[in-house]
């Protein structure tokens, strides 16, 4: 579920969001409610296993609107076997009242956008909270009865030293978090920060420093008992974000809200990323869709390589070979050669059952995926 509202549009962010003086939040929640009702039959009677609410800043919705939204959710769907219900929060926009509303609605997990514990780096990112906020917000959530928590951090911020990053990691782990997402700052096309980079307003982080940051992230997380399960995600045993695993494992999920994307058995679609359209176009409750893809075996395998290899568990080797063989004569042999090469370079594990990246492979994961997907010769 995508809640597109933010108090401020941070200049590095390329997700769909907008600063709204609250006057459209009510009609947005009502519209989202209609979409959820429309989507419900698509669950085919099965109960939902996981829910993830992202944004934007979902915690910016006032408790009474959350109450309305959660009510619709329970009305439309069978949530009796819900295993995980995550909501993204920003440290500065939470309150005990919000958390108790979320708990009442079945929320089991919060993902806290701390990003950094260093005031100057928070300023560089245009984040508005202060370093202590994140810890206080997490304590508040725990006190309200939300059992699972995650912290989001960003590294490779211009001006950030290796030591600064170590401190951020230490501060996050000191909060006893069971789940950590550490994202290397990327300059996405079309963002204000990318434009400023192009104008030479600041110096981006050095590649060698970023590589070192990747390394110490891994060792610090491991030191605190968190293992990498995805390129940028670390968790204590059993504390992985199950909803995210659905994405990486090629599972099925529904999508609601502007710019949200869904996937069911190879069909992929994405809602139009425009609040006005979302509010004004209502086809029996369904949202306007700007992209839709239908199943295609070659594309499906490419996507599985792309998503599956991002996980430490990787993919089942035999399954990959079978899929490639079914594509066309050259695909399996091409893929086998590419796998052999990437293994020789030390980027793929030699595990006979699983096809997965090594620690070195994670650093260059996209190039490994490109080599493998390219070898399918589609």
């Amino acid at each position, binding site marked *: 579920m995508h809640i597109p509202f933010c108090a401020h549009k941070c200049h590095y962010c390329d997700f769909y969001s907008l600063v709204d003086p609250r006057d459209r939040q009510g009609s947005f929640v009502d519209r989202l409610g209609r979409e959820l009702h429309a989507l419900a039959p698509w669950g085919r009677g099965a109960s939902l296993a996981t829910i993830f609410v992202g944004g934007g800043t979902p915690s910016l919705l006032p408790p009474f609107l959350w109450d309305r939204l959660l009510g619709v959710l329970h009305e439309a769907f069978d949530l009796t076997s819900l295993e995980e219900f995550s909501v993204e929060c920003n440290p500065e926009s939470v309150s005990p009242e919000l958390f108790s509303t979320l708990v009442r609605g079945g929320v089991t997990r919060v993902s806290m956008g701390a990003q950094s514990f260093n005031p100057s780096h928070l300023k560089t990112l245009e984040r508005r909270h202060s370093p202590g906020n994140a810890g206080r917000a997490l304590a508040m959530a725990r006190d309200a009865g939300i059992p699972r928590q995650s912290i989001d951090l960003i590294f490779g911020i211009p001006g950030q030293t290796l030591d600064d990053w170590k401190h951020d990691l230490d501060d996050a782990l000191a909060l006893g978090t069971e789940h950590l997402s550490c*994202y290397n700052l990327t300059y996405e096309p079309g963002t204000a920060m990318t434009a400023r980079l192009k104008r030479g307003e600041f110096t981006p982080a050095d590649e060698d420093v970023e590589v070192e940051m990747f390394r110490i992230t891994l060792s610090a997380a491991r030191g605190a008992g968190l293992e990498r399960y995805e390129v940028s995600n670390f968790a204590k045993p059993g504390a992985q974000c199950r909803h995210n695993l659905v*994405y990486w494992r090629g599972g099925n999920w529904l999508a609601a809200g502007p710019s949200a994307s869904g996937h069911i058995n190879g069909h992929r679609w994405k809602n139009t990323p425009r609040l006005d359209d979302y509010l004004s176009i209502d086809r029996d409750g369904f949202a306007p869709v700007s992209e839709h893809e239908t199943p295609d075996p070659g594309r499906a395998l490419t996507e599985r390589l792309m*998503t599956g290899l991002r996980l430490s568990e990787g993919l089942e080797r035999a399954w990959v070979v079978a899929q490639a063989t079914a594509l066309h004569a050259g695909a399996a042999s091409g893929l086998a050669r590419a796998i052999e090469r990437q293994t020789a370079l030390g980027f793929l594990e030699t595990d006979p059952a699983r096809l997965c990246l090594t620690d070195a492979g994670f650093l260059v*994961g*996209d190039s490994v995926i490109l080599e493998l*997907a390219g070898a399918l010769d589609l």
Partner: protein
Amino acid sequence: MPDQTPHIRNFSIIAHIDHGKSTLADRLLQATNAVSAREARDQILDSMDLERERGITIKASAVTVMHRHKLGAKADDLEAEYEAPVDESGKHASKKGAPEEHGDLFMLNFIDTPGHVDFNYEVSRALKACEGAILVVDSTQGVQAQTLVNAYLAVNENLTIIPVINKIDLPGARPIDVAMEIEQTLGFRAEDCLLVSAKSGLGIPELLASICEKLPAPRAPVSDQLRALIFDAVYDDYRGVITYVRVFDGSLKLGDKIRMMGTGRTFQVTDLGKMTPKPVRVPSLGPGETGYVVAAIRTLKDVRIGDTVTLEHNPATEALPGYQPPRQMVFCDFYPATSDGGDAPDFEELREAVEKLSLNDSSFTFAPVHSEALGFGFRCGFLGLLHMDIIQERLEREGGVEIVQTAPTVSYHVLVRGTDTVVSPSGQTLKPVDPATGNATDIPPGHTLVDVHNPAELPNPSTIAQIREPICRLEVMVPQEYIGDIMKLCLDRRGTYKNQSMVSATRQLLTFEIPLAEIIYDFFDKMKGMTSGYGTMDYEVTGYRSDNLAKVDILINGDPVEALALICHREKSEQRGRALISRLKEQIPRHQFEIPLQAAIGGKVVARETIKAFRKNVIAKCYGGDVSRKRKLLDKQKEGKKRMKSVGSVTIPQEAFMAVLDQGD
């Protein structure tokens, strides 16, 4: 009363590129009402899209128009307004009054010529069909290098030249200075230059009068046997080859059985006519006339430009002088771009496109070639660099194939010890130099002189006695202040200074002798750059000469890449090798591993560079399961990679194969 037999004037328009030759041709057609203003498109004579886009004329065309002129008329009496269209039957219909009142009828045959040095051969054969030439000079640019070269060609053919100063309507026009330049460099009297604006039509009636008054009539026939010079041929999908001829003696009629005197081949004439510029059929072509001939000729290979056409039943005894085979001076490989590892379908597409284009342009050569790095392709020979660019563009545009082009090399003559057949390292037989080119000279006893136009085919170095390379006479025209820079550039490129002469008070003409190999890469751009765009140049290959040349191998990740090998002067091999691998370093993206780049002569490394491995290559976040977006990014990268070529495990962008061109020293 029937029209009297018209006076005939055959002429060409010659000029430096962009001096307005094609616009002038259009204006003449319009002024004689051959085309209406409404019909007039820019540059009517240039039939190919490419020609219009690049603003240059590639293929010469011949057009016939009728014009009335009172011989001896004074400038004030010229009837600027009066012109009448040629009707379907070729008759000249009058608009007001009897046609005869408006003077004698003139048949003007004009032949549009290519303006670039690469096509000098086409220019000179077109000039052989003429008695006169209009030399066009831009009044803002003045005399340029190609102006001179083209004028020399016309003088060599004994043509009468009318100097025309064009674009006099432009604010920057300085016709008096330019007239002085023409007098200074070419010896025409400044006051004989006609002032014209092809764009506005100013001076056009005077030019038409001058064509009728000053250009000589065709020479009288010397016999009754047909002798017609083939000065151009184009391929038409529906009618086969359309040949343009100029009749000198005898006459050619529809249905005649003709014989090409050079090849001995015979054909039946099925269509005969003139372009006005629309095709108009005529029953016969007489002495002095030009026109087109259709005779069921299937490919351009069956026609030699410069050959003489005679009649099968009453043949002439001697051909007209003129035939020379076109000389390919520049060679490079074309490979299909999308092919990875030499997929058959892409190569077949390229083959089809090349073969189809060769029907249209017989002056480029092609032979299949295979490269480890680039798969299957063609080794092609061109008249010059522009010709190469044009062929590449036409293959891509008309043939719908994407091409990887390797760096061009010149044709070397290699003197090998022994008289056995000479073979290349890949086992190909190397052809001895054709004595007809006039360059198969100074072959000592017990030696063989072979043609090598691919560095990869250089025979075993221990058998090589000499490597000879084409030498040019280069003319550069520059403003005074750049002379020092141009001197330095030419001397750096193994040029020898020959002569300097004044064009005007501020501009000089410099003449050098310089190896062609030194001007086929980035010379033109450098010259333009250092003269702020004011310099112009032209060159002509004059012969072959030996020098201390060597083959430089380029190794990527330890593998020699033949498509990047080059032949250069031994003293410059280190510099060239270093420059090339630094360019490669910029062109080849970082890989998952370190890539050494080396330049070597016979196993001895003269320069090296390393492309470091990338250390990090991963998208940090893939938000909310928006997999499609990331996959599209991956597809794009995959597509990009497909367009690259693999050498061992290294993928090389196609641009890298052109890196040899851009030395950036």
